[in-house]
């Protein structure tokens, strides 16, 4: 539960507080901040996500929520689908772009066009991940109130 809370809290904090502040900073400051911030996030977030998913699955198994007759079973399958969509976006689009931006920023002469193009990926996928966050909240609420 702590893992899930940390995951959502960090996600919202970065998206709603850090992101907009970063967007208003001058480009060199943004690059400087990102070059120090991203390596930590690349280490922290996958670990947190993996631990949360594994712990949540074990908890659901122990509490019998995975049994076919359990009223939460269908909602848990829906949550797997949500996690699946987020995993494909995170592993296939966001993380490669994150690491590439990081590598680009460490070059002697970073290519602003490449960085801008990769950052556009975040904007394109932000809508989908935002929807998935809302879906997660709905599923969690539903499961807690069954």
């Amino acid at each position, binding site marked *: 539960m702590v893992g899930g809370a940390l995951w959502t809290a960090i996600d919202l904090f970065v998206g709603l507080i850090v992101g907009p502040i970063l967007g208003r900073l001058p480009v060199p400051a943004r690059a400087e901040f990102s070059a120090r911030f991203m390596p930590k996030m690349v280490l922290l977030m996958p670990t947190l996500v*993996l631990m949360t998913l*594994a712990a949540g699955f*074990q908890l659901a198994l122990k509490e019998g929520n*995975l049994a076919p007759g359990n009223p939460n079973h269908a909602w848990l399958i829906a949550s*797997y689908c949500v996690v699946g969509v987020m995993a494909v976006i995170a592993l*296939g689009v966001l*993380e*490669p772009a994150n*690491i*590439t931006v990081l590598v680009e920023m460490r070059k002697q002469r970073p290519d602003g066009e490449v960085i801008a193009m990769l950052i556009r990926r975040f904007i394109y996928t932000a809508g989908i991940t935002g929807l998935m966050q809302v879906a997660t909240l709905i599923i969690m609420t539903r499961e807690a109130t069954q």
Partner: protein
Amino acid sequence: MRRLPPIAQLTVCSLALIVIGGILMASYVPRQPPLAAPAALTAVSAALALTSGFLLSRLEQFAWSRFFLAFWWALLAYGISAGMIGFAFVRDHTRGAPLALVIVMLVIFALDAPVVIAFTVARYSSPPYASS
């Protein structure tokens, strides 16, 4: 802009199929899952991953040193992740054919993610973006 083969797209499709197969398998826990659909998805995923690997091996003027630097580190990270997921399945008493299928899926997962990351990193360190 230099046109590269659709390596990232093929690998992401392969990854997506593995995720769908994993969801199918996990949705049956703690019962024994039917293996036909996950096995078919895994086979298609493996074919896509192999195609992507083949296309990758034919690339010229590519930042291979950058590719392998990113690939090995990512492989270490995703190898650990896949190992932990595998451990969770073993701990949940998954045995026999389902466990074998899960292991194959995890191996593809542990290879796909580093390939996408390393390819994306290396393509922007290769011509025309940089001299390799």
